[in-house]
């Protein structure tokens, strides 16, 4: 276990600067913008609670979308990172198994770092919400905030977002691990080849043999990913008790609990099982490539 923790530490040492930059630069831009920029909310000014929540969700969502882009672009390169800086010979000369080494890279870069960024996104979101209330309603706006309700939203929402991030990564794990495997084996051609196989192969299967399962399956992965990371009650915002249309934040805790049950129940599907198997195959291919270094 000490070995694995050290391998995670190595990932942190190597990549923390970039991730912290990603988490902090938007914050440093947002604060002066919120303090000195113009905020336009239309003719009817929403109550302080909704403003706080709206800006918090907007900032957090923006940062996490940015993090998603970074993960998407960075993941294939992780498979060849140590080969490219030629340090691979050093790492494989140490008594750590290939499975542990690849596992630590995957866990840290695809899960723990995004979770850390979620923490920064939440902190920045709270700050954005408070500043927005201050700008729109003045200092009195803070006094008018429904603190109890907002605390409920925070206590229910943040664990749900963290869980959603984990589940979302699991839903996308087959694509991410295949991208890593393709990059490990085919170098710079890996991602284009993978995209061509899935895209053109899927089209060919659908058009020539009336077999749309490949394209549909990939599309479904993204759909389930979306349901996991954004609490929408599996895309059914209008189900009973939804707080969004009515602005009924007092019901948020109960609603988020229902949503959590739905996204967890969503895992009990053949697609998720197939996704995990494909991800495991991708992981195995990355390990195999490392063994052949």
């Amino acid at each position, binding site marked *: 276990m*000490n*070995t694995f*923790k*050290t*391998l995670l*530490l*190595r990932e942190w*040492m*190597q990549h923390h600067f970039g991730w912290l930059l990603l988490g902090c630069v938007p914050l440093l831009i947002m604060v002066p913008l919120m303090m000195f920029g113009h905020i336009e909310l239309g003719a009817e000014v929403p109550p302080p609670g909704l403003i706080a929540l709206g800006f918090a969700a907007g900032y957090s969502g923006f940062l996490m979308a940015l993090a998603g882009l970074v993960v998407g672009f960075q993941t294939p390169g992780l498979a060849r990172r*140590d080969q490219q*800086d*030629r*340090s691979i*010979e*050093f*790492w*494989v*000369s*140490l*008594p*750590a*198994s290939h499975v542990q080494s690849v596992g630590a890279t995957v866990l840290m870069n695809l899960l723990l770092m995004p979770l850390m960024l979620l923490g920064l996104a939440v902190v920045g979101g709270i700050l954005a919400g408070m500043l927005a209330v201050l700008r729109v309603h003045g200092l009195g706006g803070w006094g008018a905030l429904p603190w109890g309700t907002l605390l409920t939203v925070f206590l229910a929402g943040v664990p749900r977002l963290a869980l959603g991030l984990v589940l979302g990564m699991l839903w996308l794990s087959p694509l991410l691990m295949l991208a890593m495997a393709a990059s490990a084996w085919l170098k710079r051609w890996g991602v284009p080849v993978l995209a061509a196989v899935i895209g053109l192969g899927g089209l060919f299967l659908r058009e020539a043999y009336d077999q749309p399962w490949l394209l549909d399956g990939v599309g479904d992965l993204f759909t389930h990913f979306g349901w996991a990371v954004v609490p929408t009650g599996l895309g059914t915002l209008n189900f009973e008790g939804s707080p969004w249309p009515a602005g009924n934040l007092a019901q948020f805790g109960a609603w988020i609990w229902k949503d959590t049950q739905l996204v967890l129940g969503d895992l009990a599907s053949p697609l998720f099982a197939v996704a995990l198997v494909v991800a495991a195959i991708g992981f195995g291919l990355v390990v195999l490539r490392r063994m052949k*270094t």
Partner: protein
Amino acid sequence: MNPNDTLIRAEGLSLRYGKKLALDNLSFSIPKGRVVGLLGHNGAGKTSLMKALVGLAGHDGQLEVLGLSPRRERVALLQSVTYIPDVAILPRWARVEQLITLMSGLHPKFSAERARTLLKRTSVQTTDKVKALSRGMVVQLHLALIAAVDARLMILDEPTLGLDVLSRKAFYDMLLDEWCDGERSVLISTHQVEEVEALLSDVMMLNEGKLVLNISLEQIDQRFVALKHSPQTADAIAAAHPILRYRQQGEAAALFDGAPPAEVSALGQRMRPSLVDLFVALTRAPEINPQRI
């Protein structure tokens, strides 16, 4: 010899890369307390052998290192075997202190305190970043890190390649002073044969994947005879079939495997054969040098 004293035992060891036979049926053993030089031209199989010894390359035949199978028990083996590969590149993003921290977590027999002590012999500071160090300093750092591991066997693949003479001397000084204690063994491959000759106890020569010589330096003096002779006796010397005819300090010389006939010996002046001459004799033309061990 006590079987427990044997650190490496190979029987019929072969290694292929596709159709190319990199190692061809090698059989040898290396006991404890030896400093073994592994010599061979580029492509002779030195790196392949070393990779097989640390479990980074598959092989046919029997191979045991410290009583373990390198391929199946790589992680356990690398706790007692340290290895500097021929492309020894430490991660450029890391600081020296970070590498010490990582080694402490990854290597159960690593002493951070000893590493810091060894580094005091060099111009490397613990606050330095690897990418700010010269190649010589990086190699010194790498040696300090692995010499701080309480291992039984050190495998060094061209560790001083590309270093200037001062860096090479500093490297070998540290190796001898801080690591070789009569119990541990070192297997070192290099092209700088003259420089390592003084520190070797044994030498192994590879030629096109075959082990053409495996002998202690004391035995070399007994088995091989070099004769310095005048040009007038060249024909008579050549008729005795030396394995190499060459020039030494401007004078003609011949190298014999075994003592030449007394009348031939009388034609020249016996001298100690150098490892370089022996290397040239045994590896320059495989077709006229049948396998000899």
